[in-house]
């Protein structure tokens, strides 16, 4: 029988904390890449509406949107799981300022060169077969027998195998000390599905007027709805033991690359084989996008917003709009940075304060501020005349790093930007979004202070 390995030394625990921060960074790095491609899609395109080809394209666009958002949601879960493990062994998860500052980028501590000798490079790009190939590279399953790799890793699975082996050697007594400030389970922080992760079997159904006399209207919706994520495929968990940590790592690995390393299809992410892995989902989309002569490949641009150019920057938009776009781009980047700040602060709070802060603050921020701002900024019609060149067709987000002058001033700087954009481009930051930004909690939380929001009646 092999001798049991000794517990990690304090220096080794510190190194493990750094690896878990890397895991968090990797998961976070994927979020803007996936979100950018998601927002490039018009999920209800109106091209060639009356023809079968138009319906085929619209159905694919809506499905691609649902699939990409479903993966992005699980990447956020993975980030939270890695952060909870890090917190469990005494680390302090850092989220603010950890998203890639610019694009394209490699993933943190990823091998520099791919199998073909070209550098790994992941960027912001519209939906395309090429971009889906990048997604497949991110989610690339490890080969059977692949070595564990703590740095310069080839696949995420190999990196997570290494981290898991290190976790097994942590003194178990460490784990019970930091449960309170982890993101709590059964608090609703993570819902596998929402109206954005699902998609219809047939896009035409969505556009069709619904019968006012239908006997069972919801049953008609249910027949159409395709659910991407399963409710039992893994959720947020508080890490109290080594076993909890291993289970969390397993969720992250399996949801990404599939349950069985030996399955060449890498399809299911669990024993029941009832949720597809990220790699498999992207591969299905990639096949549909790359089939020669297909309607989807030929006409995909009709389902995309044309302003979603590759790796846009604030400077690029500024040049095109003679500076008019600066406040809009700053606001969107600041909202994104503020979401990261709120997440980071949540790991210093407990109980109702954490719940109010993370669930309501994050949810409002993610779905009702960032989502709606990006949704609006994509349309050229949202801007006043003369905003850009005659060819101007809207703005795409840049997801560049935005730094507030201090945590104490972050909220006031964010609301000042909202005020500016609301005044100058009210169709991008409308009254609802403006109010929701003003309702976000202050990330500068003096110890013991209650978490406050704006008045609900002001909504």
């Amino acid at each position, binding site marked *: 029988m092999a001798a049991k390995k000794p517990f990690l030394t304090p220096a080794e625990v510190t190194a493990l904390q750094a690896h878990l921060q890397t895991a968090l960074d990797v998961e976070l790095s994927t979020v803007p890449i996936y979100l950018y491609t998601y927002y490039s899609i018009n999920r209800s395109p109106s091209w060639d509406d009356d023809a079968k080809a138009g319906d085929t394209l619209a159905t694919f666009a809506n499905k691609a949107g649902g699939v990409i958002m479903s993966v992005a949601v699980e990447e956020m879960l993975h980030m939270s799981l890695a952060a909870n493990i890090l917190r469990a062994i005494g680390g302090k998860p850092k989220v603010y300022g950890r998203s890639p500052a610019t694009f394209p980028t490699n993933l943190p501590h990823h091998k520099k060169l791919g199998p073909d000798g070209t550098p790994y490079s992941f960027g912001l790009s519209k939906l395309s077969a090429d971009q889906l190939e990048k997604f497949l590279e991110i989610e690339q399953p490890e080969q059977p027998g692949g070595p564990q790799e703590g740095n310069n890793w080839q696949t995420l699975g190999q990196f997570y195998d290494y981290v898991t082996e290190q976790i097994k050697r942590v003194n178990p007594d460490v784990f019970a000390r930091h449960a309170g400030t982890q993101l709590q389970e059964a608090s609703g922080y993570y819902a596998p599905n929402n109206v954005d992760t699902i998609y219809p079997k047939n896009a035409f159904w969505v556009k069709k007027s619904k019968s006012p006399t239908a006997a069972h*209207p919801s049953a008609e919706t249910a027949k159409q709805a395709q659910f991407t994520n399963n409710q039992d495929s893994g959720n947020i968990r508080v890490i109290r033991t080594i076993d909890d940590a291993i289970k969390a790592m397993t969720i992250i690995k399996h949801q990404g690359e599939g349950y069985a390393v030996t399955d060449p299809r890498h399809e299911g992410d669990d024993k029941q084989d009832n949720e597809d892995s990220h790699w498999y989902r992207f591969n299905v989309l990639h096949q549909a996008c790359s089939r020669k002569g297909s309607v989807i490949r030929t006409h995909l641009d009709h389902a995309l917003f044309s302003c979603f150019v590759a790796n846009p920057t604030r400077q690029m938009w500024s040049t095109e709009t003679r500076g008019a776009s600066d406040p809009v781009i700053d606001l969107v980047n600041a909202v994104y940075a503020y979401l990261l700040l709120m997440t980071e602060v949540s790991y210093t709070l407990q109980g109702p304060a954490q719940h109010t802060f993370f669930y309501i603050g994050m949810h409002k921020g993610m779905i009702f501020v960032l989502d709606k701002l990006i949704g609006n900024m994509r349309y050229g019609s949202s801007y006043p005349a003369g905003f850009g060149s005659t060819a101007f067709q809207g703005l795409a987000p840049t997801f560049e790093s935005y730094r507030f002058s201090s945590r104490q001033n972050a909220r006031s700087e964010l609301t000042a930007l909202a005020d500016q954009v609301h005044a100058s481009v009210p169709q991008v930051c409308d009254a609802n979004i403006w109010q929701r930004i003003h309702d976000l909690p202050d990330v500068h939380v003096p110890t013991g202070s209650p978490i406050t929001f704006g008045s609900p009646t002001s909504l």
Partner: protein
Amino acid sequence: MSTAKTTPPLELHACLGLNACKGHDRFGTNTCAGMGACATSQAHSCHTLNNCRGQGGCGLYGTAEEQNRPGNNPCAWQGSCAVPINAERISTDGSNQGRSVWMRARAVFEERMQQAQRTFGEPPQQLTTGVVTDTTVYNTAEGPPAAWLDATMPGGYTACGASGLSGGGSCI
């Protein structure tokens, strides 16, 4: 139908058939608990926008727990989705996933009334818009269709999400 308001609504609730008292629907004309024609709470399009307890809809965003108690959220901003609850809407998460949100809301309401030992009536089975040119009789047995809400609500009706599966349009 008459839209004359005879009683100011005291109870703010999320939809047709979810009122606990006589005269407490949007039009103030219902004769008994459970028989109201529409919500009295402030209409809103999405999750966390409910002003207070019991004023949230459900189904499009939110947790499994929230989605299992539409129209009965415990506090402001803990409602799970748009109000009123259109008949086409299904829950996207939780034990009611893939089934009618309004039917679940009605079941939760009936349970609450039974616990309070209150009598309640059947919800309206059919409604018209009251618009002279619209002769459609809308089936409301499983909640108000989005088309009826759109025609009767000031500013129309919108639910949220990008997939179009809310049945009430899209807010992005």
